[in-house]
């Protein structure tokens, strides 16, 4: 079931710093772990534009262990990146593409995101009524966590 994802978060850090941190596997890992329901076991960069990992993802008792990849499809430093994520867990899979647009605003960065997420397998065929909600949950928490993580790291630099 396809989800439309769209929104904007402010990151309390300058755009160049945000851009550089955005591709750091460790940042991504920390960000993901802040999302309720996600525990990342492993996340490593395997090439310039590809990351691989494993995570436990779910809400309450509905949980799965996912193996996945994140691939950077296109980027235009320091303002625009399109990437795709894919994960699979037994009879379920998730996938999606997202575009991030970074704009500098008074030393801070406005990060606009837009994309679609997809869920397939048992989750889609029996859990459709929850997918929209779960998707929103992850995106809302995920983008907030990313902004916080980026800001925190940026301050350390």
């Amino acid at each position, binding site marked *: 079931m396809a989800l439309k994802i769209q929104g904007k978060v402010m990151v309390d850090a300058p755009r160049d710093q945000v851009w550089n941190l955005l591709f750091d596997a460790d940042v991504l890992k920390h960000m993901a772990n802040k999302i309720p329901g996600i525990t990342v076991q492993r996340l490593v960069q395997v090439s310039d534009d590809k990351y691989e990992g494993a995570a436990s993802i779910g809400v*309450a008792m509905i949980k799965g262990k996912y193996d996945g990849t994140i691939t950077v499809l296109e980027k235009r430093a320091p303002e625009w990146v399109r990437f795709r994520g894919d994960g699979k867990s037994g009879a379920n899979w998730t996938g999606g593409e997202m575009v991030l647009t970074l704009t500098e605003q008074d030393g801070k960065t406005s990060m606009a995101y837009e994309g679609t997420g997809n869920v397939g397998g048992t989750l889609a065929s029996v859990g459709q*009524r929850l997918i*929209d909600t779960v998707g929103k949950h992850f995106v809302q928490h995920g983008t907030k966590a990313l902004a916080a993580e980026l800001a925190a790291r940026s301050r350390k630099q």
Partner: protein
Amino acid sequence: MFPAKFEYYAPTTVNQAVALLKKHRDAKVLAGGHSLLPTMKLRLAQPPVLVDIGKVKGLAGIKVAKGGATIGALTTHATIAASKDLRKQCPAITEAAALIGDMQVRNRGTIGGSLSHADPAADYPAVMIALGAEMKAVGPKGARTINASHFFKSLMTTALKPSEVLTEVRLPPHQPNSGCAYVKFPNPASRFAVAGVCAWIALDAKGRCAKASIGITGACATATRASKTEAALRGKELNEETIAAAAAQAADGLDCLSDIHASAEYRAHLVTVLTARAIQQAVARAK
């Protein structure tokens, strides 16, 4: 149809159950099983350990007294629906119980299981919020009480800690000149609430609304309160127009969910319709 493997424990006391939950961090509590087992059969949930509290003594039953009603966590929906004492004091909860799933589900499913699972489309949460119910939870550090307003955190997530067991639901005592009602729009397939609204209304001496408390379920990721409608009713003469005007605000600010049965917009609309209907019934009962 075939759950994955798990370890199974059947404690006979709450303390044993809590100890097991403390020991097995990924354990799930099994009560009637009508939320958990369907998910396990589809292997969407694969808890490694189940703590079946079905054999724990003293967790089932309804007590209605002057100070309010208590409902044990293992009390089935059927028992709640059939309780005459409860109906007299608080018809909304018996109404909600009678509309859950179907007869067989009501015979096995428990109030504690349903509340702990916190399905966004479950019926009870709206009632709990509207009535200001309290949940008693027992954990390794003893018992504590959680008000319904703070109990439903987010999608299928409650204020219960992993090692806590919900043991009892407490409903406040019946107030004179008050009435409550639960109204539901069921999903034609699953019978879950596409939207469900519980209204509790207290009247003042002049028959105006002294206080209104309205809980909404099914519409959002978690059960919530129709604060604007509550405020709009307070102090008002209750007639068709004032009720309609207040109910029209019931979905304001809600982030309604959308699925193949109902769009967010339609859900929001249903919330307003059901709110008006629930208020009307509650007022009729308060008089």
